[in-house]
């Protein structure tokens, strides 16, 4: 018997929801981390350590840490800084655990690595040394590195997602990086410049289960699949209600199954299409899509779902979860076939992740 924790980053601190394998009854704890805005809360399944990346308008950026499943927290930003004179790090945006290290993406965009479980940080300089950096433009939320995707077998490889710069890849442990955006549209450029080398606004990036070459991306301008590690991308947006959204979540076992939450459009309010909530699922790598609505509200849904606020679990009967800008958390214990509201009246939810722990 194991327990499942849902890790929520919100505009007002971290929250944890806990249940057993049945995932029917949930207990809510929080807010944690002195109610700091936390953009991303993750855990290391090997140790159960939880970290939260965020920043506070008063006190700046920090990564919070709990080694007792949320009962107590510490924080550190030692080394999480650019050299004197450069624009300071405003907030931490994303986290990833990889091969004994913890990575943090920050605003303004950059990548940091910790080899002591988040107590101290070192700058992965190679990314900001890329010759394209003077051209990097911020997206609506700023110039943020919001996605970190380590290669599951090759510790030298990693992809990162920066708004609105695009996807970059390293094959040498972060010393050098190359853009991986071929085939990604940039609708706001002049017609003959819509497929640049970089400058696309990636919103979400994930890897298919068991296939390290297959990536999926939700972009400001469309949904995409790559079967060659991001060297080239193909649109998979046909059949979806819009080309705009933020999060993307891959099935934990099936590389052809993917979950998305399209919003109505970037200039139309960025809420659920027709104000009716739906998660969209493909079973064939994006060739066809099904709307999953059973149990989700079908009127008056003027909420959005942000880039890190959709997650899956690894339990039998894969669970899918998403948190809304209006503070509701919805969950499914059957791969999206049916849904329930698991929590409401929370602060705006910025991220959702899962952690399975022994009973």
């Amino acid at each position: 018997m194991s327990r499942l924790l849902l890790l929520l980053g919100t505009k007002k601190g971290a929250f944890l929801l806990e249940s057993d394998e049945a995932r029917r009854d949930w207990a809510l704890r929080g807010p944690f981390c002195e109610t700091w805005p936390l953009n991303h809360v993750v855990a290391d399944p090997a140790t159960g350590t939880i970290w939260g990346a965020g920043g506070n308008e008063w006190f700046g950026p920090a990564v919070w840490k709990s080694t007792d499943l949320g009962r107590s927290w510490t924080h550190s930003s030692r080394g999480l800084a650019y050299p004197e004179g450069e624009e300071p790090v405003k907030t931490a945006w994303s986290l990833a655990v990889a091969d004994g290290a913890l990575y943090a993406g920050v605003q303004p965009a950059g990548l940091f690595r910790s080899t002591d479980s988040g107590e101290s940080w070192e700058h992965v300089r190679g990314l900001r040394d890329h010759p394209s950096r003077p051209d990097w433009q911020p997206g609506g939320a700023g110039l943020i590195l919001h996605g970190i995707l380590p290669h599951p077998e090759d510790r030298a490889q990693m992809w990162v997602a920066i708004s609105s710069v695009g996807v970059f890849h390293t094959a040498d442990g972060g010393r050098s990086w190359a853009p991986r955006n071929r085939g990604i549209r940039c609708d706001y450029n002049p017609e003959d410049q819509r497929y640049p080398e970089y400058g696309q606004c990636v919103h979400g990036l994930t890897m298919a289960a068991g296939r390290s070459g297959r990536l999926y991306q939700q972009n400001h301008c469309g949904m995409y699949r790559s079967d060659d590690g991001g060297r080239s991308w193909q649109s998979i947006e046909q059949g979806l209600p819009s080309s705009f959204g933020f999060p993307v979540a891959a099935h934990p076992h099936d590389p052809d199954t993917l979950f998305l939450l399209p919003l109505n459009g970037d200039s139309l309010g960025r809420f659920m299409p027709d104000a009716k909530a739906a998660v969209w699922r493909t079973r064939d790598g994006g060739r066809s899509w099904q709307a999953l609505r059973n149990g989700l509200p079908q009127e008056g849904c003027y909420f959005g779902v942000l880039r890190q606020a959709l997650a899956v679990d690894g339990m039998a009967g894969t669970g899918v979860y998403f948190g809304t800008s209006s503070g509701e958390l919805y969950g499914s214990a059957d791969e999206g076939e049916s849904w329930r509201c698991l929590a409401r009246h929370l602060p705006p939810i910025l991220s959702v992740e899962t952690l399975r722990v022994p009973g």
Partner: protein
Amino acid sequence: MATVVLADALARLFPGAPREQQVDAADVAAVLDLLDARWPGMRDRVADSTPRIRRHLDVFVDGRKAGLETPVAAHSEVLILTAMSGG
């Protein structure tokens, strides 16, 4: 010794840190160095890497708004306060 008074929200980030402390320092930057030695990480919470006092914090020395280079005298009062901010 100068007296340093921390905003409640700042002291809460460092369990055990008293709101009021005595320091022997020549300027505000040295005050932060001393606080950081006692409570590791406190300097980062008050000043950024520019380096300067964070935008939504105010430091006052003997009633006057101060920066990192503002001198601190033997019997000065140094207030580290949160400015109005939020959302």
